[in-house]
């Protein structure tokens, strides 16, 4: 990890959001991989495990909650930060109970996102 940039996976079905977040995190010094569906991300996890995942909750197909559950069930112990437009208290409680590192609401401040990822990973990306 010391020899490479921290790898952050972003999972969101919104292409615009995905692209913007990718740019933000890249500008912040992360290596970024983006996934439009939970299924695509879970498939990639079998191959390699990112250092952190920024996960949307409501997506077509597998929801963020299910992705979180499947991650917990597999060997990939990656910190999960939920970022969602549906800021209901129940969703937050459910995500945190599921082991999420953090819970952010869209539109989330970029510096806050970066700092939370850094805390989740345990160090600066730089």
């Amino acid at each position: 990890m010391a020899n490479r940039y921290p790898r952050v996976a972003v999972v969101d079905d919104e292409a615009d959001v995905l692209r913007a977040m990718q740019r933000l995190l890249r500008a912040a010094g992360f290596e970024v991989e983006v996934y439009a569906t939970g299924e695509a991300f879970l498939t990639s996890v079998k191959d390699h495990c990112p250092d952190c995942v920024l996960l949307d909750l409501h997506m077509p197909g597998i929801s963020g909650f299910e992705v979180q559950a499947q991650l917990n069930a597999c060997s990939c112990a990656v910190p999960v930060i939920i970022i969602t437009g549906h800021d209901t208290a129940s969703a937050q409680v459910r995500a945190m109970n599921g082991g999420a590192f953090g819970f952010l609401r869209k539109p989330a401040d970029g510096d806050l996102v970066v700092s939370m990822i850094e805390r989740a990973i345990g160090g600066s990306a730089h």
Partner: protein
Amino acid sequence: MAAASSRRQLQDSTAQAIDGLMNWIEFALPMLAGASLTLGLVQAMVWLRHRGQWASLAFALAASAIAAVMLIELATLRTDDPAVFQRMVWLAHLPLPVLFISLIAYIDQLSGCGRRGLALAAIAARLATTAINFLGSAPNIHFLEVKSLRQVEFLGNTVSTIGEATPNPWYSLTMLANLLLVAYVLDVLVALRRRGVGIDVQRVCWVILAFYAFAVGWGTLVTEGVVQGPYGSSSLWVVVVVVMAYALGADLINARKTELRLRDLEAHAQEYERSVRERFEQAAALHRDELAHLSRVAMLGELSGSLVHELNQPLAAILSNAQAAQRFIGREPPDLAEVRNILEDIVANDRRAGQVIARLRALFRKDRSQQRDVDVRQIVGEVLQLIRNDLLNRGIAIEAALEDELPVVTGDAVQLQQVLLNLAMNACEAVEAAEAGGVREPIRVRARRKDAQIIEVSISDCGPGVPEAELERIFRPFITTKAKGMGLGLAVSRSIVEAHGGRLWVISAPGHGATFGFDLPVCASPAAA
């Protein structure tokens, strides 16, 4: 001698010619009879075309009877034979009862207020005199015997009249019948004057009364020898005929005036009815628009989370892009190519947010319905976009099958979106209600051209369906199967679709889901591109 003879012949022929010219009664009575018959014929034809106009028939019979009486009277004037005179008086009792009854019928029809009892009594008395005239032993009901006739000068003419005669005592029955007729006519006259109506009929009554007074008086004076003149006075009936004809004509003129007035009134009534209908329709449209707005706002309230999310997405993208740009610019050297790409995305996302706001503003706005050309595919797409996040939250998938190149319909895009939104949200709730741990079937949205004139949009779900007994009831206002909700959605949707000339329908089998849909007429004249 020859010259004297020819001069005498000339004098004789001149005297004969002058006598002929002077004997005008022989021309006048047939002419008056002809005139009377002509008037009668006209009214008979009127009656033949309008069978309900019994007054015309009564007049035609009365006029014909008068003509007959005149011709019979002419025969009495010309004869010097008492037997022929008696026979003619006897014969006159054929047309006289017809005249009598026709007069009563005429007045009854035109006035509408004659006493039927009095009329029947008069007719009965008159028929009795007729019977006595024809069946009695006397030559006629007037005289038991006419011994002689007298030739008298009357208005420059020599005419026959009663000489020596023995009256028939039954003649008083004729007088009774005449009195009853006079009483009937007087009664009608009084009634009409009290009501202040029927001026023309009143005039006829006056003339009849005057004629009877004169005829009775004249007959008495001639019989008593006080006056030198003919026994009968039928020529004066022409006055009665003319006044009666005028009353009928006036009736027709009045009828025409009334008809024109009625037409005018009818036109006014139609105009008023149209105005009231327009106002009612305007009020109904206003009411429908207000109710639609109320229902729409309530529905949008339910969707608020989803709508906020719809706006949040471009805002989130803008914020992340902008903060990324700040970082790229802060680098040495700045990554301007990336910043340029970011700015393009920011512009695009800002526009997207603007569109979301415009769409929401349109849905929340309380406007009168606006009829424009509407692309059904576009409104279906916008509704799917609106509910997309709500469906994601609820874990419900939606499949759309929209035919390409659907023709435009004329309507209010916002209201049609509202209908679709309502049907889609109902479908979602149906799917959730049916959930029993199994796999949720997607909701299916379909838009197709049903035929040349109709576009059909439908939404199918695999929910519990609608019981047959409820299929019609669910479209009524304030009927709902949901725990929450006013029960206005389907009622408002139906009124919107019907205001667009379409039809909202449902097909459902309990346990096998439901399909709600609406048909819309294709725009008659497609909008120019």
